[in-house]
């Protein structure tokens, strides 16, 4: 009876893993197949011949490195700005009390009821007026807007746990409020900032809607927009899609490996209490 239970347990876990992993396995494997094997009607579950041609083509035929750098630039810049804005705002909301705080907090949090698509039109008009449409700056600005509210909420789980005494002691020693915040408080909540940075990077890295609406010239495209071209209506370059999918997935996976633990803590702490 015991053995049956154990077998059932491992089978059920294996089933869940299969659902999640198999499609990913399929794409990775296909990125190493030669074109004839890729387009044969009989799929092979292991490539007959390994080839790197789709990876080399990626850098020869398309400004892939350019797209990649654009994506990195947007994600890093937006994450940096979000870190500053959201950590200051979160300290204010979770550590201070003043009139209107409650309302401000709720407003920030409720922003998610905003349909994102509602922002596209007016921001497009405004950015065109400012002359920054079709620049990466436009995308950085809009990404911060999207990511900041969630970031403030996520920091709660980390900020609330920092003991007051340390800040107080520093104040007694004559440090200014700002010094205490920057030198004492923020270092203590480093895991929270790491979780925020990871989430923000992921959001920017995967953002497609604003990127496709705001970016026109080829040199300014981010990865998802550049990749969408391989998915033309009448001709789909499967090889390039597979190889670029593998590459675009690497940075998120690496970063999640570094800060994933904190990210999940921040995500779940708020939801389950």
């Amino acid at each position, binding site marked *: 009876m015991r053995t049956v239970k154990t077998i059932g347990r491992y089978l059920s876990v294996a089933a869940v*893993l299969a659902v999640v*992993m198999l499609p990913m396995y*399929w794409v990775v494997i296909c990125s190493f197949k030669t074109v004839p094997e890729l*387009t044969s009607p009989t799929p092979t579950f292991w490539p007959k011949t390994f080839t790197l041609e789709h990876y080399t083509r990626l850098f020869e035929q398309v400004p892939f490195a350019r797209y990649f750098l654009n994506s990195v630039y947007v994600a890093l810049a937006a994450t940096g700005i979000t870190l500053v804005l959201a950590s200051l705002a979160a300290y204010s909301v979770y550590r201070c009390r003043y*009139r209107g705080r409650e309302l401000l907090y709720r407003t920030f949090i409720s922003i998610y009821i905003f*349909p994102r698509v509602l922002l596209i039109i007016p921001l497009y*008009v405004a950015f065109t007026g400012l002359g920054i449409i079709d620049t990466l700056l436009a995308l950085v600005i809009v990404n911060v807007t999207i990511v900041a509210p969630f970031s403030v909420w996520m920091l709660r789980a980390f900020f609330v746990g920092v003991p007051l005494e340390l800040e107080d002691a520093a104040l007694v020693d004559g440090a200014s409020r700002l010094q205490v915040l920057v030198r004492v408080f923020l270092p203590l909540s480093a895991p929270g900032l790491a979780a925020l940075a990871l989430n923000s990077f992921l959001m920017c890295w995967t953002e*497609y809607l604003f990127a496709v609406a705001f970016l026109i010239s080829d040199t300014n495209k981010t990865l998802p927009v550049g990749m969408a071209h391989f998915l033309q209506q009448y001709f789909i370059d499967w090889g390039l899609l597979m190889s670029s*999918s593998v590459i675009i997935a690497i940075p998120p996976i690496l970063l999640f490996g570094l800060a994933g633990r904190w990210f999940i803590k921040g995500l779940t702490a708020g*939801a389950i209490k």
Partner: protein
Amino acid sequence: MPRLSGAAQTECVKPSADERGNLGPSPSRDGSRPGRGAAAGYARRLRGISGLLQKDPYFGYLLILPLLVWALLTLIYPLVETIRLSVLDVGYVGTPGAFAGVSNYVRILAGGEFWRTLRVSVTWTALNVAFQVLLALVAALVLNQEFRGHEFVRTWIILPWLFPSIVLATMGKWVLDPTLGVVNYLLLSSGLVERPISFLGSPGIALYAVTAVNVWRWFPFFTVIILAALQTIPRELGEAADMDGAGYFARLWHVELPTISEVLKVVILIASLWAINIFDAIWLLTRGGPIYKTTTLTILIYYKAFQEYRISQAATISLVMFVILLAYGVGYLRRVMKEEVAISA
């Protein structure tokens, strides 16, 4: 929460003892919740320390100001601008429009296009929420068991959620392709179907196919949240249930589900708000086709603005959508959650 000084003062103290992340930092009116005692103890401790933290009444305002200004410029201004555009008649971006009054609203609400799209949106959202939450629940229950490597698996299960939609679209299109797709290959070779199915090209199937792909991406994310809630169940509770000879489903009904019911409510709300806002997965897989069968409100707004160049109509539809979402969100919080909560997604 004890008041420490005048309300207009900025006193920096720990937020209310109410540690439920989905509540604002306000003191809870429900005195029975645990943590109340902690707050009182906290206030006592605060009196014990120097009180310097309570000086500087404007520090709190100063810190929130940057984000506030940012939000005003990039959220509140766009909202006002959208309202302005909706009462004009603007075609291309940047062209001036004549005043149109409510004619855009009349045209949208009287035409069949909007209602058809709304129907698709509601179906899409309902399907997504149902399958995402159901699968997430099953997966969370499975992964909540003790097995070797459970720590690793419970963290990395979120993997699909880390990928950009373009990867999702690549996978979906590739796996479901009529001639090259592995799904059709398996269906054909097992004799279940006679000829390949064009999943994304058939009007009756496309919405379900896109849903399947989207669910695959999102359910792991909710699995992680539900798992965290399941982990709060004390071992003794489960053991006690087992001692009483309760079967698996009896235990599920009396122990697990009541424990996670609150989290499920939050998850359903978040899932629905996200599903209705989804653009990229649908756009990349079907572009809203075939014959508008996967055109949700988000797709329609994008299409009107950037393919048909009817900015004013697009603005009008997005406002109507905003009102619908607001009504849904507020209604859900009042009715289902039975309280004033501020949800983040």
